[in-house]
Structure formats: structure tokens, C-alpha cells
């Protein structure tokens, strides 16, 4: 895939508050990239720098290998879907969507065709005459997407676009956005703090924290091979424990030694170990690698969330079989279920 956007050493300083600490990131054509992180991690700031709404303190932004820091937002081939939609309240749906094309002085005939095609794409056929202020959040969201996409930008920026919608509508829109992205075949850069949203939609996820990139990778990589404690903790639920690497394929924690599939650490290196709750199994006491007592069991719909207390800590386990509270059980896992992360390694 062709390289489309490149951030080089982007630093953003808001009155002494370092929001971005040297971001290096490359984004390719037709990618669905998600910037994921907790609020205040700098993801929206990075998006606004790309949109041209705020200048970076230092560093360069390349768009098709051309530095664009001094290009004003209205000359960038980028369109944005804003967090609170920012629809024009004094215009109806049609005029909102037609705005960008009218600025470009296209003929009303062509505008009509393009707007109607776009309204169809977002499922708002026949809604052109509606006042945007009288539409539901989900509908306003669709208008905002249509208004941006009708300009045929090379990149669409989406700043937490589903944040204001209820859960069911959000899930629907997730699938629809992914579908739209495949249909129009352009790069989507999506900002969210919702890890599930990121895992569902993205080709690539950029996990950010404190103005730094923590990890870049596909959804499965990020989930299964988190590179540090922050990523493991932020993406999905996990048991994170501290241990010592004894040798290649051998790690020690909680007073015992376990076989694992990781190598390349120095002998005796302190490490963080992630065990996903769904990788742990509750088995009869004598078959387990560890022993503990069931402390609680919560029904979560698809699975039970069970807490088992061992001599050293509490483990969270997700399983479809319930377990009796106060029962002594064994815990079982396979060597590949232990994900070992160096304490030193950040991205």
C-alpha cells in the first residue's frame, strides 16, 4: 500500500503542557486506522493537527510526501466528521451536504446527483428537506458523514463520532462505517477511547497514552501481543502480574516456575505477564497448575465472570461454566496463554 500521511516527530505544547511528545506515524492509502487511548492522551490533538485546525509546536506532517504544515484547512484534501457533528443549523439536510460542493462552484445539476447518491449511501434517502435540528443523533451523524464524504476527500477524519449514540445504535453505525469505508475506498482515521470499537473496525490501531504512541498493530496483535502493561490493561480485561524470566521459555511467578513460549530476555529479567481472563480455565483441584478458592461469580450474559483467590492474588476468569462460590478449585492455562512483556519496552 502507498504511503499517504507521515507524522515526523510531532510535538505539541499547550502553554507548557506537553500534549504530544514526538509522534512518528505513517498511514497508508485505504487504511482504517484508529487512534485509541484514554481522554487526554493527545489523540484528538493529533487529528486536529492533521486537519489543519491547530499548528504543531515542532515536527512535520507530510501528505503524499509534501510538507503541509502551512497549508490552511480549506486547502487540504481531508474532511472531518466532528465529535458533536457541527452541522449547520440554518440549513436543511440537502444544503448541509451540498455545502462543500457549492463552495467548489460545481453545477447544481452535478451537486444534486452527488448529494442524492451520498444520502442513499448513508441511508437517508428522501430526507433532503428535513431541518437538521429536528433529527435524531444517529441521523445527524449520518448527515455529518455524508457532508464530509460527498467532497471525495482522500482522507476522512472521525473524532469520536459515535460517542453520543446509545449502545445499539453505536454497534449498528460501527458496521455501517466499516461498510462505507470499503465502498468508497479511502483512508479513515478514527479517534476513540472505546477499545471494543477500535478492535471491531480497524485495520490498524495506534494505542496512545500521555502524548506517546504505546503500540501500533492490527487488532489481533494488539489484543494478543500487548507490548507493555498499559496496552494490556487498556485493551480488554486482563490479569497482569509481575514475574522473573528464568531462561528462554521459562518464567517464574507466584512462587512457581511455568513453561512459556517467549524467549530473548536476559536471564533473571523482571517482566510483566498478561493472562487474559478467557484463557484461564477452572478445573478440578488436582488438575490445576495453581490452586485457589472461588470468591465470587457474576453472570455477564455470554459468560460468567469468576474471581478465584490464590495464595498470592485474585484472578479474573471468564468462562461459560459456572463454579460454586467457596469451592476450592484448580486453575489451568497453556504455555501460549502467558504473554510476557519486558518492563523496559515501550514503543
Amino acid at each position, binding site marked *: 500500500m502507498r504511503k499517504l500521511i507521515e507524522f515526523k516527530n510531532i510535538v505539541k505544547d499547550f502553554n507548557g503542557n506537553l500534549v504530544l511528545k514526538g509522534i512518528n506515524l505513517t498511514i497508508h492509502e485505504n487504511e482504517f486506522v484508529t487512534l485509541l487511548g484514554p481522554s487526554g492522551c493527545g489523540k484528538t490533538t493529533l487529528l486536529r493537527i492533521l486537519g489543519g485546525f491547530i499548528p504543531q509546536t515542532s515536527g512535520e506532517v507530510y501528505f503524499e510526501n509534501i510538507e503541509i504544515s502551512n497549508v490552511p*484547512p480549506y486547502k487540504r484534501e*481531508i474532511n472531518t466528521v466532528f465529535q458533536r457533528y457541527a*452541522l*449547520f443549523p440554518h440549513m436543511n439536510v440537502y444544503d448541509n451536504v451540498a*455545502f462543500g460542493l457549492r463552495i*467548489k462552484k460545481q453545477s447544481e445539476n452535478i451537486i444534486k446527483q452527488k448529494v442524492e447518491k451520498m444520502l442513499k449511501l448513508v441511508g437517508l434517502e428522501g430526507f433532503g428537506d428535513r431541518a437538521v435540528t429536528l433529527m435524531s443523533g444517529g441521523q445527524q451523524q449520518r448527515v455529518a458523514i455524508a457532508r464530509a464524504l460527498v467532497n471525495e476527500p482522500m482522507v476522512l477524519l472521525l473524532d469520536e463520532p459515535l460517542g453520543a449514540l446509545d449502545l445499539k445504535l453505536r454497534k449498528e453505525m460501527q458496521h455501517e462505517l466499516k461498510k462505507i469505508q470499503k465502498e468508497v475506498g479511502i483512508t479513515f482515521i478514527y479517534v476513540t477511547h472505546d477499545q471494543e470499537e477500535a478492535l471491531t473496525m480497524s485495520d490498524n490501531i495506534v494505542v496512545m497514552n500521555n502524548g506517546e504512541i504505546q503500540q501500533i498493530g492490527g487488532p489481533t496483535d494488539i489484543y494478543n501481543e500487548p507490548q507493555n502493561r498499559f496496552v494490556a490493561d487498556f485493551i480488554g480485561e486482563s490479569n497482569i502480574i509481575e514475574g522473573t524470566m528464568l531462561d528462554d521459555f521459562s518464567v517464574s511467578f507466584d512462587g512457581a516456575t511455568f513453561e512459556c513460549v517467549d524467549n530473548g530476555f536476559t536471564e533473571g529479567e523482571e517482566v510483566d505477564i498478561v493472562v487474559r481472563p478467557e484463557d484461564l480455565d477452572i478445573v478440578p483441584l488436582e488438575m490445576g497448575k495453581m490452586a485457589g478458592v472461588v470468591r465470587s461469580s457474576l453472570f455477564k450474559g455470554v459468560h460468567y465472570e469468576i474471581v478465584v483467590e490464590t495464595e498470592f492474588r485474585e484472578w479474573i476468569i471468564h468462562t461459560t461454566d459456572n463454579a460454586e462460590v467457596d469451592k476450592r478449585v484448580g486453575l489451568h492455562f497453556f504455555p501460549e496463554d502467558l504473554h510476557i512483556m519486558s518492563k523496559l519496552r515501550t514503543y
Partner: protein
Amino acid sequence: MVGVKKNRWFAPLAIGSVLLFFYLPILIMMIFSFNDSRSLTGWSGFSTQWYEALFKDREMMKAVYTTITIALASTLVATFMGTITAIGISKSRKLIKELILTVNNFPILNPEIVTAIGLMLLFSSLSITKGFYTMLIAHIIFSTPYVILSVLPKLRQLDADTAEAALDLGATPWQALFKVIIPQIMPGVVSGALIAFTMSFDDFVISYFVTGNGVKNISILVYTMSKRINPTINALSTILVVIITFALILINVVPNMKKKERISIE
């Protein structure tokens, strides 16, 4: 409840007397504009002679013309300046915003006579000949702060992202201003313009001090009528009341009609 009898006549009576108190003077003035005699208090029969006299009175017609030209021109300039300034204020840092707002409120709170004397002294010390243009400048000066004050609340309600959205969609900053921001703050701009127009139309104190060369607006003419007030002024006032009534009806009814249209489409 015991002992309290609801009097269903009290509310209509109260509002009726208040309205009567407000409008009786205007009504009397309108009636006497059709009086047959010169008397301002004794009715002697119907006639339209004062209207004829009004349109024949060259001095009076000149004053009407001056008043309307100055009101229109000063409203136009004050509305433009006030709107642009308000937009600038809304985008400024807090300190600058408060500073400019304080400076803006000063002429509003200042007694008019102080502004008037100040302007007179300014024009005199710069040896500018007083007349039509000094009056126009003075009217622009005292009505601009009102426009700013009426536009600012609309800007506060404005979704700041819409301006960014316009830029994002390819609009230059000027296009964003005229196509997105101004349409949204239009109600504030219109009410600011109306205030500016009325302020200018009936201003006496400041106009009196900054005019010269025999340029008079209606207020100056009436206040300085050498002979005693004659009923032509009643005729003029009646015409103004009718014009204002029509304007108010227009302003209040037209937007409602548009709204209804929109709802019926949906």
C-alpha cells in the same frame, strides 16, 4: 380555599388599564392630528389640513429627510462594525474580552449629555465644520455599542465547531463568516440594527450638540420650534406611529409564517 374568591374581572381590568395608560397619549395625539382648529386640547371637527400643511412645510420635510437618511446610514455602518467587533470579541482571550466589553459599556452608561459635549468639543478642537456628517458620525458612535451587546449572546450560543466545519469543507475564512456564522447570528444582528435605527431616529441631545449649518432632524426641529407647537407635529407623529406599527407587524409575523411553512413541509 376559604374566603378567597377568585375575581375573574381583576386580571383583564389590570391589563386593560395598563394598556390604556400606555396608549391613551398616542391615541389622543392621533385624534387631534385630524382636528379642525389649531387648538391642541379642544376638538372642533374633522379635517386633514395638518397633513396638507405638513407636506407643504419645507423645513419639516427636510428634517424628516435628514432623520431618515442619518438613521439608515448610521444603522448600516453601526450594524456592520458592531457585528464584526462582536465576532472579534468572542474569539479573543478572556482578559481582552472583558477589557473591550467594559470600554463598550462605558458610552451606554455615560449620561448622553457628557457624550454630546465630548463630541462637540472634539469636532470643534479639530475644527471640523459641524453639520450632516458630524451628526452621522456621532450617531454611528453611540449606536455601535448596542449592536455589539445584542450580537454577543447569539455568538455565545453558536456552536464553535460549525466555523471549523466550514473551513474543513473548503470555505475560506470569509466564506465561513458569510455563509455559516452570520446566518446563525442573524436574529441578533437584526435586533441590533433595529435598536440602532430607533436610537438614531429619536435622538435629540447628542444631535443638538454636534449639528450645525442649519441641519436639523425631527427632534431638534420640534424642540426648537420658535412658534408654539402646532398640530402638524401631531400629523407627523401619527404617520411615524403607523409606519412603526406596520414594521413591528412585519417583523413579528414574517418569521412565524416562515416557521409554519417549514413545519408544513415536514
